[in-house]
């Protein structure tokens, strides 16, 4: 490897795994860092210990893909350096700071593939900070990785493909699902018919989830408005409007989410240029079809670069690795690269279908009640944010953060940033693309601050 530093792959989900595999195939030895204790990412997350459930029980129709990824990553042992439970918290001048095993390791890299994934997209609703309310992804993690249900009688609300998948998984696990509340109007689902040509199996699977939920008596409501979660110290129920009526249901757990949002902070620290993506309603790091960013030898793959799903992540991970190899003048199969790009383009068209079937309810942002928390870290209400916007004529998101502290807490705006942008756009009559994006800061997530004892103290102690 002629003394060059090794490539760094951040994330060991479907994109990171396929990227690492392709790098190894090209004769490179990447360093793979991942926050989780085992590979798989969120979608193919592994349990901490076996619990008697089969891969089919855990991953359903995707069991084969999950097992292949876990197996293929295990086969890379000895050919990669792999740091699990490792947090990349800073990137600067070709070096990465990684917190692992209680210490900071600064590593130089030559080629960086960011496969940082996604989390649930949220708009605040009354009661969303109550104990017993989790994201849809979080509800799934509880069930899949921990074998726990988030309640004994659960409601799933929001929109997006995950809404019906998680509800179905809970039902299959024997948990009482009280209702599925979809913000999308029923008519939006006809868009899925357009998806039949592209990916019939995925569309039919979704239809099967809905049919089986219905068959088991789960109440399915669409066109849900005015959604609120009730309770004082924990969830006691949900209320909403649909079909021209007010509804109320008792429950002790709520899974909530409005599809997904990309984790882009690492790309920001790497210096990547961003562009606004209308479909995701978010500023995303620029990339070409191969995954190259505006920064030489920095590549993106998977949902962290825009929401495309796990099947796309596998292909984008491999494609980005091929790009890295090409840029290092290593031989790569251009035929394979072209094929991956064609498959990604097809998935991209399907994403348009999904977005039409599960549209983001942007109008909810204008309706967030004044006393509903917008920023759950700093406990800033929507009303306080609106006051700041009005009083200081704020038109840009970082200014709103500086004045109101929205997005300044421990999550660094991961959870509230998108909602704050929607609120600011609504309040000022601007387009969502015109309010800017939160600048990312190191450390990307909280890191332990350990002060070494001074030399004099050490002598005293000894």
């Amino acid at each position, binding site marked *: 490897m002629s003394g060059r530093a090794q490539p760094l792959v951040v994330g060991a989900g479907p994109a990171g795994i396929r990227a690492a595999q392709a790098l190894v195939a090209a004769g490179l030895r990447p360093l793979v860092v991942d926050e989780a204790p085992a590979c798989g990412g969120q979608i193919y997350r592994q349990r901490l*210990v076996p*619990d008697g459930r089969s891969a089919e029980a855990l991953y359903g129709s995707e069991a084969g893909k999950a097992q292949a990824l876990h197996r293929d990553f295990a086969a890379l042992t000895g050919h990669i350096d792999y740091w699990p439970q490792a947090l990349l918290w800073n990137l600067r001048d070709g070096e990465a700071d990684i917190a692992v095993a209680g210490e900071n390791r600064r590593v130089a890299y030559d080629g960086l593939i960011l496969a940082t994934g996604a*989390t649930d997209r949220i708009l605040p609703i009354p009661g969303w900070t109550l104990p017993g309310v*989790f994201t849809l992804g*979080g509800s799934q993690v509880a069930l899949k990785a*921990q074998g*726990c249900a988030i309640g004994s009688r659960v409601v799933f609300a929001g929109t997006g493909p995950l809404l019906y998948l998680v509800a179905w998984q809970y039902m299959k696990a024997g948990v009482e699902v009280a209702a599925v509340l979809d913000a999308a109007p029923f008519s939006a689902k006809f868009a899925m018919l357009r998806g039949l040509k592209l990916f019939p199996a995925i569309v039919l699977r979704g239809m099967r989830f809905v049919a089986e939920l219905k068959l088991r008596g789960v109440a399915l409501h669409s066109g849900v408005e005015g959604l609120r979660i009730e309770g004082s110290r924990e969830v006691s129920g949900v209320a909403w409007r649909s079909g021209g009526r007010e509804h109320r249901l008792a429950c002790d757990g709520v899974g909530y989410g409005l599809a997904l949002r990309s984790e882009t902070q690492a790309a920001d620290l790497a210096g990547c240029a961003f562009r606004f993506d209308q479909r995701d309603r978010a500023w995303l790091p620029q990339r070409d079809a191969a995954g190259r960013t505006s920064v030489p030898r920095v590549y993106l793959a998977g949902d962290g670069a825009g929401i495309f799903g796990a099947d796309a992540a596998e292909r984008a991970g491999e494609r980005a690795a091929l790009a890295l190899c090409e840029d290092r003048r290593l031989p790569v199969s251009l035929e394979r690269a072209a094929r991956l790009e064609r498959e990604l383009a097809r998935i991209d068209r399907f994403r348009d279908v999904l977005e039409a079937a599960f549209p983001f309810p942007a109008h909810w942002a204008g309706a967030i009640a004044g006393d509903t928390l917008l920023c759950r870290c700093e406990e800033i209400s929507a009303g306080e944010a609106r006051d700041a916007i009005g009083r200081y004529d704020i038109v840009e998101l970082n200014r709103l953060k500086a004045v109101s502290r929205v997005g300044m807490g421990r999550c660094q705006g991961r959870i509230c940033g998108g909602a704050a942008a929607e609120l600011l756009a609504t309040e000022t009559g601007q387009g969502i693309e015109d309010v800017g994006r939160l600048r990312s800061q190191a450390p990307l997530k909280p890191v332990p601050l350990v002060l070494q004892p001074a030399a004099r103290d050490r002598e005293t102690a000894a």
Partner: protein
Amino acid sequence: MPLLHRITRKDHAPIAFTLDGRACEGRAGDTLLTAILSHAGAVRQSEFSGKPRAGFCQMGACQDCWVTLAGGERLRACTTPLAAGMSIVTQAGRAS
């Protein structure tokens, strides 16, 4: 009162820990979040309003589930495996 309900691992090896001084048992394979919420309805109180919080994303993104050990160490509950003997403090003023 417990927020999470176990479906699997009910008979896995017990792991002893304390929650606000109370002796509790988790199971092998638990995260701290699972261990706490199998016994309680919250993992902490908001430092601003004092309202209970119990995590949100369960994947290390939202930072809602940081908990404090009796010794003062702070841990993110959803990404930390439960270890025997952990002494967790969820309520202000309960630290011994």
